């Protein structure tokens, strides 16, 4: 085996699996199901596999955003504006975990708050402590969070700010957790919608061929030859001001998937063209199966893996689009929190240079986009286990 951090290990991250481990080719290959083969191949794609672990972590944040947050994401307090991140200390003054007490004072020349950490007085932090009340998944009412202050009598907003605070004194860490939830689910809903469009038009196009096929293909080409961001901007700017966050959220996913299904439709059409003359399809047809049954019961399941691969590659694209729109102020608007809304605060270079913690959400966006892309690449390579790379 290669040592963990050697040059060759780093390089092997890029290799698309296969050739380097011939010893694994034993009898089990002949007996394995398609799903097992895909899974094995995906595990050998190290970059993709590592990335998928990171993606899982991000979706855990989506599930437990409130539990991970330390403060309500929209509660502001000007007295704590631009507070730098607070660290956690271990085993100090009888506490297992604690943080330094921070006192702020307004500088009357710059009108900014200046904070001073007094580590002589530490405040205890407890794991699974009490915090603001929320409903887990909209069902279970609780006030437990992963971190809470031991002294429960304190102002709940004065809790630890792991990523500091923004101009209005809102906790950047909690906002990042909530933004992750919003942005990553917008991506999922959008992908689900474009799978519906893509399967519908792609299967018709590939199965019937002929005039319908060329019409749909020209239509797709036209959509692809028009820059989409200005269209999204135009459409989303028309949202009425009195819409609720949920309405805007839903319409944005609809708009994004309205133009994003083309990649998926192309992949599905290609697979249909390749499969429609296979024996099993002819057999189904001769047995009297209706067209819809042939498409959905006989053909589609044979390339689920390709659909999943393409869908996982569209996911980062959707997230980027939503982030861009919200960043321009034409997508989700405050008080909604998404990556784009957070990055708006990081747009002013002067403030970011002085308050670098405002840039932490940007790093998270880059990490999740990269991870999703690498994972998608890995799935795509593993989707067809019989193909030699």
């Amino acid at each position, binding site marked *: 085996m290669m040592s963990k951090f050697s040059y060759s290990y780093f390089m092997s991250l890029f290799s698309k699996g296969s050739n380097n481990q011939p010893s694994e080719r034993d009898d089990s290959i002949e007996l394995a199901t398609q799903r097992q083969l895909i899974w094995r191949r995906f595990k050998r794609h190290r970059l993709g596999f590592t990335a998928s672990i990171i993606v899982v972590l991000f979706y855990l944040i989506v599930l437990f955003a409130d539990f991970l947050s330390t403060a309500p994401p929209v509660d502001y307090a000007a007295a704590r504006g631009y507070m730098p991140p607070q660290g956690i200390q271990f085993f100090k003054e009888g506490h297992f975990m604690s943080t330094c007490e921070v006192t702020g004072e307004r500088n009357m020349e710059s009108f900014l708050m200046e904070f001073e950490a007094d580590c002589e007085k530490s405040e205890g932090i407890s794991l699974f402590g009490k915090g603001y009340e929320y409903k887990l998944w909209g069902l279970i009412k609780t006030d437990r969070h992963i971190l809470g202050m031991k002294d429960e009598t304190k102002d709940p907003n004065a809790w630890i700010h792991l990523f500091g605070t923004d101009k209005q004194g809102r906790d950047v860490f909690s906002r990042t957790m909530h933004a992750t939830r919003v942005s990553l689910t917008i991506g999922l809903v959008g992908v689900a919608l474009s799978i519906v469009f893509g399967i519908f038009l792609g299967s018709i196009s590939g199965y019937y061929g002929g005039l319908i096929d060329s019409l749909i293909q020209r239509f797709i080409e036209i959509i692809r030859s028009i820059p989409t*961001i200005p269209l999204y901007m*135009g459409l989303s700017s028309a949202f009425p001001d009195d819409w609720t966050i949920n309405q805007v959220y839903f319409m944005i996913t609809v708009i994004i998937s309205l133009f994003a299904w083309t990649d998926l439709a192309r992949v599905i059409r290609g697979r249909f063209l390749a499969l429609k003359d296979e024996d099993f399809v002819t057999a189904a047809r001769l047995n009297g199966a209706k067209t819809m049954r042939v498409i959905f019961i006989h053909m589609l399941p044979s390339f689920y893996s390709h659909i999943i691969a393409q869908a996982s590659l569209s996911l980062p694209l959707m997230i980027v689009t939503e982030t861009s729109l919200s960043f321009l102020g034409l997508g989700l608007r405050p008080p909604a929190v998404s990556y784009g809304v957070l990055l708006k605060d990081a747009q002013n270079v002067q403030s970011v240079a002085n308050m670098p913690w405002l840039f932490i959400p940007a790093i998270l966006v880059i990490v999740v986009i990269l991870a999703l892309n690498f994972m998608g690449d890995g799935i795509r390579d593993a989707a067809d286990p019989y193909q030699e790379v």
Partner: protein
Amino acid sequence: MLNFIARRMVFMFVALWAVTLISFFIINLPEGDYVTAYIATLQATGSMVDAEEAANLRIFYGLDKPLYIQYFKWMNQIFLQQNLGFSFEYNQPVTNVISERLLLTIILAIACVIFIWVIAIPFGIISAVKQYSVWDYLFTFLGFVGLAIPDFMIALIAMYLFFVWFDFSPGGLFSPEYVGVPWSWGRVRDLIDHIWIPMVVLGTAGTASLMRITRANLLDELSKPYVITARAKGLSEWRLILKYPVRLALNPAISLTAYILPYLISGSIIVGVVLSLPTVGPMLVRALVAQDMFLAGGIILLIGFMTVIGTFISDILLLIVDPRIRLGDS
């Protein structure tokens, strides 16, 4: 060959038509119409408009007619009178407001395409010829990262790094003394001095994908028998590679440009906002926020046209470069 051009022409016109439909749709999307906006601006300056006058104005502008007639009137106005409507924000015809910004957007897009070619093709060739070398891995990794990070994030990071390291914030396309003055040699030189930051930021994603495609195509070509023959005849390695396989591998590079163009234009809007460039992007955002719909619709129409025509041009370029399309009968 004529067949190919004719088909692409037909496609181009259908796409242009689709762009006009979408732009018209977006113009009519917000509640209220031209007259509502006009009355609002008049009221802002203190003068009053009564209901009868408003109705007369609607008849005058044809707003009482059904939408499809309004659409034909609008098209007529654009193509016969080159009139895109009136911008309330700027109190000027839309054409006056956007002409220079549109020119700068086109210049930026062309600069980006050239940058993408100049960087991606040589690096792609090196990656393929020296496959599995350190360079190959480095370029592949940078390519992946460049492709995955959205360009406005690259713009934000570039701004931040420039500010922290060199203590200046990059932004705009001109020095202050050249903003809003007529074109001169000094202004062109000033533009060249400023354009490279947005060019690099915007071109990164395109460079990454073109590099990967050049590499993949060249790898396919390198193992073909004609390469071995040429090598056996004693042609020097680099001359051989540049003369035969690279020429073939370049064709997809050109067709990819048509594919990249819409992304480039989309990206230039957001990057334009971040780097505050005098391109159409920031103006489009402002127009949409202020609901200045003729200006917004005009911008969307023109950048849509630009992309579709650019795609057509790159198709024609492909025709010139690739004899298989030029001589083939399909």
